[in-house]
């Protein structure tokens, strides 16, 4: 059996490397900085692919800026413990300015929340029970209601609002 002291020192060394890989710089001594930087980039690219996969509309809304914006976010924010693309995307969305959240992104946000029940102990957990949320959109003015009902699944409902003149 290993004494805990060994494990503490072992953990400290792994944490130092991990934090450097996430940031993409200041690698611990003895590591090949070029390869470590490539490893860090590939970690962030993997996260970006997962977020784009879970949030296709978000990637479209940000256009060419998605890659650079996400990379900057990922250097500052370690990935979540659970729900890789979905939760990471949710955290990323929270860093965006209100004007960057297009109507489509706000609907996508709601649709994602209807399916995923947030944090689970050991694995992704699908939402159970009733979910009902609404979001008011601007162009055109309408309310989108997303429901998730047991035995029925996810449904969306669009309620147009009278145009204000």
């Amino acid at each position, binding site marked *: *059996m*290993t004494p805990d002291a*060994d*494990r*503490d020192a*072992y*953990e*400290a*060394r*792994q*944490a130092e*490397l*991990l*934090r450097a*890989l*996430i940031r993409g710089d200041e690698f611990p*001594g*003895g*590591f*090949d900085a*070029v*390869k*470590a930087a*490539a*490893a860090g980039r*590939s*970690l962030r690219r*993997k*996260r970006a*692919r997962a977020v784009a*996969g879970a949030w296709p509309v978000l990637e479209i809304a940000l256009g060419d800026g998605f890659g650079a914006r996400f990379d900057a976010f990922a250097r500052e924010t*370690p*990935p*979540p*413990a*659970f729900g*890789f693309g979905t939760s*990471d995307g949710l955290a990323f969305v929270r860093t965006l300015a209100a004007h960057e959240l297009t109507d489509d992104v706000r609907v996508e946000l709601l649709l994602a929340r209807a399916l995923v029940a947030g944090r689970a*102990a*050991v*694995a*992704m*957990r*699908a939402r159970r029970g009733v979910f009902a949320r609404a979001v008011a959109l601007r162009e055109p003015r309408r309310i989108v209601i997303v429901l998730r009902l047991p035995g029925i699944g996810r449904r969306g409902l669009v309620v147009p609002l009278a145009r204000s003149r």
Partner: protein
Amino acid sequence: MSAPRTTPRLGLGVGLRPGLEWLVEQHDLGFVEVVAENVDARRPPTALLRARERGLEVVPHGIRLSLGGAARPDHRALDHLATLADRLGSPLVSEHIAFVRADGVEAGHVLPVARTRESLEIIAENVMLAQERLPVPLALEHVAAMVEWPGAELDEAAFVRELLERTGALLLLDLSNLYANAHNHGYDAVRALARFPLERIAYVHVGGGEHRDDGLYHDTHAHPVVPGVLALVEELFALADAPGVLLERDDGFPPEAELMREVLAIDAAAQRGAARRDDAGR
């Protein structure tokens, strides 16, 4: 040192990722692998139940146990793997020789461990703690490591061999990871292959990747399998038999026919290797 456990014949497989559910209807396949943490063990997705109905084996593949980490493996995570294996009648489960978190920070990927005597001690203990709580054999996969720890006391094949000998775990041999490490760290993949504990193989991973401008090979699982990896499939089967070979494709999915052609190309390479082994009378 415990004797290698017998592994069931698995045949050809593909990683069953969301978007690839059509695979469970394929007649050429004998098994699929599923990322354990993406499945609710109490309610496995229809595709997995269908796979079992069709007689395909399902191997839960863990990515978050962090057996190479400093913390002892989490009981809830192990119980999740165990429940999944029970629910799906799995012949074995697999995980990585890697760490995925440290000091409360997540990596979002499997990261390499230092190949020292000290880390071997810690990882062997973690593996044995995991095995105590699992109802089926555990196979361990060596990872693609773009970054290597300084001060290695063992090379990768020797580290893996010693870990498996000490724990009795099986080998999940990943030929793409071997190719990536050999290319990126400048050693001969075929010579390294022969030094892995091939007699302990549970199954083999083959994944796609690409050579990029930075001079490095990136193990993306989002691109086709490169010819150098297919050559390693042939070399492996020229040296030893393996109960199963599985294609890992996680992203950028090609059309169904193209993906199945890739599976059959892997099978053809394995058969070429096996024929060479027969000729050599091994």
